């Protein structure tokens, strides 16, 4: 079975269960690719975004959980040109997502009581190819997701099972002929200690998801 089919099936399964899912998701600002990123929205914060718009976390993520941050630091952390950063910050200040302070020697800003619009961010990987590399990607994303799971369309050997379970990752057996995803080892629930990048992922995935939902007929 191609990895493409596996990823699509996995995303379809999760989005049928209230998740906003995205296959082949490149975490913004990095070159890290996640096979399926799935986000479970939180109603209050989702509704707030439907009214006020989504938070431009591509630029604002360094502010989340951080207090005052200088504009120079934001430019450095996000890698965007200074002019673009300044424009986004001014707009975000206008929408009251952030406070801007033009102090000397350099301006700084801070985010106003930010809450991510999601309860959980689940990362799923097709375990059949380049498993070691995917484990590295996962490690690079430590602290910014709630659970991780690896999906296999066949029974997994004991050694790999132990390795994955030892890392707290879940193992899911996909029965292609029946369209069933069977959770063999439940994924451990992890602390979010990189709230900025967690926010970055969930705002992106949710934004795209909501955009599709607006195209519903009924």
């Amino acid at each position, binding site marked *: 079975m191609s990895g493409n089919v596996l990823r699509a099936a996995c995303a379809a399964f999760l989005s049928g*269960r*209230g998740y906003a899912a995205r296959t082949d998701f490149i975490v913004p600002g990095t070159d890290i690719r996640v096979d399926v990123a799935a986000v479970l929205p939180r109603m209050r914060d989702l509704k707030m975004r439907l009214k006020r718009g989504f938070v431009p976390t591509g630029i604002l993520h360094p502010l989340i959980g951080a207090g005052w941050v200088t504009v120079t630091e934001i430019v450095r952390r996000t890698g965007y040109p200074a002019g673009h950063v300044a424009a986004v910050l001014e707009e975000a200040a206008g929408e009251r997502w952030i406070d801007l302070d033009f102090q000397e020697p350099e301006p700084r800003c801070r985010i106003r009581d930010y809450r991510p619009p999601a309860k959980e961010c689940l990362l799923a990987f097709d375990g059949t190819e380049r498993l070691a590399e995917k484990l590295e990607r996962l490690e690079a994303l430590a602290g910014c997701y709630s659970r991780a799971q690896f999906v296999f369309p066949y029974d997994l050997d004991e050694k790999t099972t132990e390795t994955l379970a030892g890392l707290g990752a879940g193992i899911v057996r996909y029965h292609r002929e029946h369209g069933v995803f069977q959770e063999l080892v439940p994924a451990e629930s992890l602390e979010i200690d990189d709230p900025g990048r967690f926010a970055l992922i969930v705002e992106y995935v949710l934004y795209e998801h909501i955009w599709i939902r607006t195209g519903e007929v009924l």
Partner: protein
Amino acid sequence: MKKPRVFSFTGKGGSGKTTLASLMLAALLRRGTFRDILVIDADPDANLSATLGIPVEATVGQAVDRRRNELKESAGRGRKLRFSLWDTIRHDRSFDFLVMGRTAGEGCYCAVHSALTESLLDTMAMYDLVLMDFGAGLEHFSRRAGNPSDTLLISCDPSRLSFDTARRIDELVRELSLPYERIFLVGSRFPREAEDLFYQLAREAGIESLGVIPADGDVAARNLAGDDLLSLDPVNPALRAAEGLLERLVASGPAS
């Protein structure tokens, strides 16, 4: 994958479903185990809003009717059902609240209704716990749609009739193979001296009993005065009893 716990409340009209649901919510909020809680009033004769102290501004029924009209008369322009369902949810400080209400086209199985079911399921998935107050009627059960629940609580007051109703609900659930993991009987408004009788009648009905909420003067008085049940004195015996029921439910429940 996260799955919400769903507690549904049913039973004969006037048997104490709404009171039980409200007391359970009060107990849940004090306990603090669940972070995101959605309370759904699915009884067409809605009265949860009074016991929770939240005025009803809009119902799902109204949203469905509005959408159906828009589809008929203005080629579907207007707010999509999913979004107006979300608009209908009220946000209290510590829980969210949704009133189903009635639709003009009762009993209709049209596309709008199936879209509603779909959106409702997605919406419920966003919560850690959903409490649903059903009407007395069994039509919810035969309708089946949008009704995933792990636990069904049937309220019984001290009357023969309410045990008969409980038995009929239990039979119907079995007949239709509805996906409840657990069904419990709860005694509502029982005087202390009649509690043994409740357990005996529950055994005769063949339904596992969860416990009893005693008849309580303050609960009754608040109903008359139109006051909510969320601000009861923490030592109120009915509230304490609800805490006991909750303890048993959560301790024996499927892992969330």
